[in-house]
């Protein structure tokens, strides 16, 4: 028996949660003596008011889509992958290696190679925590967090000591060859006659992220593997009854999760920076958790939530640029959104359920 209609649960609840977080953010801005209306105006016009703003919004959204999907797939197996940050870091290493050391004739092939390498490196970084969880019962939350630090240290070492070109001062690889540069989103949109700003980092990886949303949907709801992952996630005991191998499913779910996180590097490393920098992930692995929570671990929800967080990132940057509101306050706003849309949805859901029950009773 559903307490309220599905549309209310998947649309109304997140929208009201979002509204509450914005109202509280407004109060916080008011309390430091700035105008919330003005702030909102800067954020909306800055992130959505021009194709330039949209370009940045979608660039960030691409990252969050990959990590949001990664967290979602693990969630469906009842695994909490907090290691997307590290998996994306290693994904970046894979992307950088194939871009630097394989002489690609054309960007499309380079893209394919980078996707495969990013996914493989990300999956590999998730493999060990997954194996430890499946075989030894080491908790995946703990191991994946630890692997984030190991990944950061590993990349630091490699960039400083191995991959840094002779005579270069900053810890980064050399620039990738021209042939690996990905087409920007303005070129993609140009093909179908939509004018789009050419000076944004948004690139063709956005389409790959969207395709991944579709693939994850097919995987989870139309394949045997997805069926087994979901069954295992709902009840390990029942899964064993049905002859589903917990070790295999844990490994598969985490490898796919790590691969999705690793593919994020195609957007940042190959698409934007054209070289591998320290900390190119910039917390997107953690934002992915909020995106998955808000998107209810469903690819459509993840895509929408990723765009929302892209908006917050870009709008927040604009806010810091044009107002006296400190950069840190943007983090506060983002935190409030995560808190209300991710962690505290029951705050909205319970009263809403009650209202629907009352309305139904009254209508009879």
């Amino acid at each position, binding site marked *: *028996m*559903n*307490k309220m209609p599905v549309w209310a649960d998947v649309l109304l609840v997140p929208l009201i949660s979002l509204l509450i977080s914005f109202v509280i953010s407004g109060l916080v801005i008011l309390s430091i003596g700035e105008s919330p209306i003005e702030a909102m105006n800067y954020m909306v016009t800055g992130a959505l008011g021009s194709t330039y703003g949209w370009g940045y919004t979608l660039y960030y959204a691409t990252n969050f889509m990959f990590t949001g999907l990664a967290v979602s797939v693990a969630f469906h197996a009842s695994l909490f992958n907090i290691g997307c940050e590290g998996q994306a870091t290693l994904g970046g290493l894979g992307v950088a290696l194939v871009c630097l050391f394989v002489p690609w004739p054309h960007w499309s092939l380079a893209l394919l190679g980078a996707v495969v390498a990013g996914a493989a490196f990300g999956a590999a970084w998730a493999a060990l925590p997954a194996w430890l969880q499946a075989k030894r019962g080491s908790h995946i939350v703990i191991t994946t967090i630890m692997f984030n630090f190991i990944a950061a240290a590993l990349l630091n070492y490699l960039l400083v000591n191995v991959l840094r070109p002779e005579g270069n001062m900053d810890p980064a690889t050399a620039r990738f060859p021209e042939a690996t540069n990905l087409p920007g989103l303005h070129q993609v949109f140009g093909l179908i006659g939509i004018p789009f700003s050419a000076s944004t980092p948004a690139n063709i990886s956005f389409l790959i992220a969207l395709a991944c949303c579709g693939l994850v949907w*097919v995987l989870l*709801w*139309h*394949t*045997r593997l997805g*069926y*087994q992952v*979901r*069954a295992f996630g*709902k*009840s390990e*005991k*029942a899964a*064993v*009854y*049905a*002859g*589903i*191998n917990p070790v295999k499913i844990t490994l598969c779910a985490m490898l796919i999760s790590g691969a999705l996180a690793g593919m994020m590097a195609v957007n940042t490393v190959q698409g934007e920076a054209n070289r591998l920098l320290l900390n190119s992930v910039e917390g997107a692995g953690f934002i992915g958790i909020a995106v998955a929570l808000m998107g209810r671990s469903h690819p459509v929800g993840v895509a929408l939530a990723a765009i929302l967080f892209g908006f917050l990132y870009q709008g927040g940057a604009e806010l810091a640029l044009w107002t006296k509101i400190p950069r840190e306050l943007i983090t506060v706003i983002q935190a409030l959104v995560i808190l209300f849309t991710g962690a505290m949805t029951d705050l909205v859901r319970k009263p809403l359920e009650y209202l629907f*029950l009352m309305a*139904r*009773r009254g209508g009879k």
Partner: protein
Amino acid sequence: MALTSDGGRQATAALFAIALKGISKAFGPVQANRDINIEVLRGTIHGIIGENGAGKSTLMSILYGFYRADAGQIFINGQQTAITDSQSAIRAGIGMVFQHFKLVQNFTVLENVILGAEEGGLLKTSLSKARKVLTDLAREYELEVNPDALIEDLSVGHQQQVEILKALYRQADILILDEPTGVLTPAEADHLFRILKGLRDQGKTIILITHKLREIMETTDNVSVMRRGTMVGTVKTAETSPEELAELMVGRKVLLEVDKQPRVPGKVVLSVEHLGVRDGDGVERLKGVSFEIRAGEILGIAGVSGNGQSELLEALGGIARATGRISMNGVDLPVTGAAANGQTRRAAGIAHVPEDRQALGLIMDFAAWENVAFGYHHAPEYQKNALLMDNAAIRADTEAKMATFDVRPPIATLAAKNFSGGNQQKIVVAREIERNPDLLLIGQPTRGVDIGAIEYIHKQIVALRDAGKAILLVSVELDEIMSLSDRIAVMFDGRLMGLRDADTTNERELGLLMAGVEGAA
């Protein structure tokens, strides 16, 4: 409907410990209780019987303050009483013994009894007062429980008595028991009924909710029957029969006895030798069990739950790692390692209806059609191609199975948790039996299942036997074991206590074996 014409005496409202008038309660579109009227005479044991989902539990939850009725009035001892929460129910003198006990396992009996009824800041006064009250109660009603024993050390029967003591300590005058015998041995159940009769003779009023007709007939003074949210009638127990009650519950004639032909056993299908299982703590739960089952035969395993039956089913079903030998149609099956799993067992022709359908047999959040593929998700007819599953084919198959097994509502996309217990079980049974297995493992096939569905499931089991299949039936319901099985084995402490022919054994003999008395005649 009311029992007012007793000896021509004019009944006054105060004659009734409880009178409910026009109680209605809806959950969204589901009308759980519809205009319920019931009057319970003081100093009687009043049975309430009905199928699963008939609204018994909802009605009692309203009486105990868990839900508020949409309409209607509650009269306690003739006084209209508003019961807004369980505190006000307790104040009105109502005590409730739940099916699942609400006891703190690592507290003593005494501590549990005063929990929530402590007086003052220091426990000492309450404890010594409770100790005195408990001693009095023990003397009066055969409620002998050591006040200083830890709950976790007590048998299930004694834990239930602690629940009753809790209610009596709170000065309950009216005691509601929800399916109290589900977890008890026959002897423990008899003891419980003696306690209840003692309480009644002291003037307490008892409401007994159950689906077991025999308990109603043996214990109650009056019985009310519920069907689909309505009260269909209240009768004196002495003036009714199990057949009449069953018919009132279901709304049609019900066959209580299983109609079955003498068995024609064929070749040995399953042969088990020295099967042993240890649990996670290394404790031996199944201790070298050996038996065989032939084609066209039902082997019933009786016993109080927790004596190794679950481990036996899990070892045979490929869930638990075991030692010993399992041979199916003459071929040895792996008992340990990765090869001993549910898939290889199914491939060998073993279907398994697990004891706990909600924890093992179904994914409660999955739709019915997803559950029909559960365990058979590799079946070729459920695949569209090498990559994709054929969800449409599974849905069609689910709809067909739902029609054959009369699952209600017949909606393949409804989540398993939204079906009643009986219909959930029908989904599991349909999934396993329709595979036409050589061996069916079936545990507690009718636990929490309503009478109409029980009759149907029993018929299916017998039909499978008559089709020449082997069946291992595990049940804690002795009646079920005796009416279905061809041969009966009793499990006690992880061992098989004896193998009897169903035709020549009796309840007394099996009862002794269940209690671990070796060599019972």
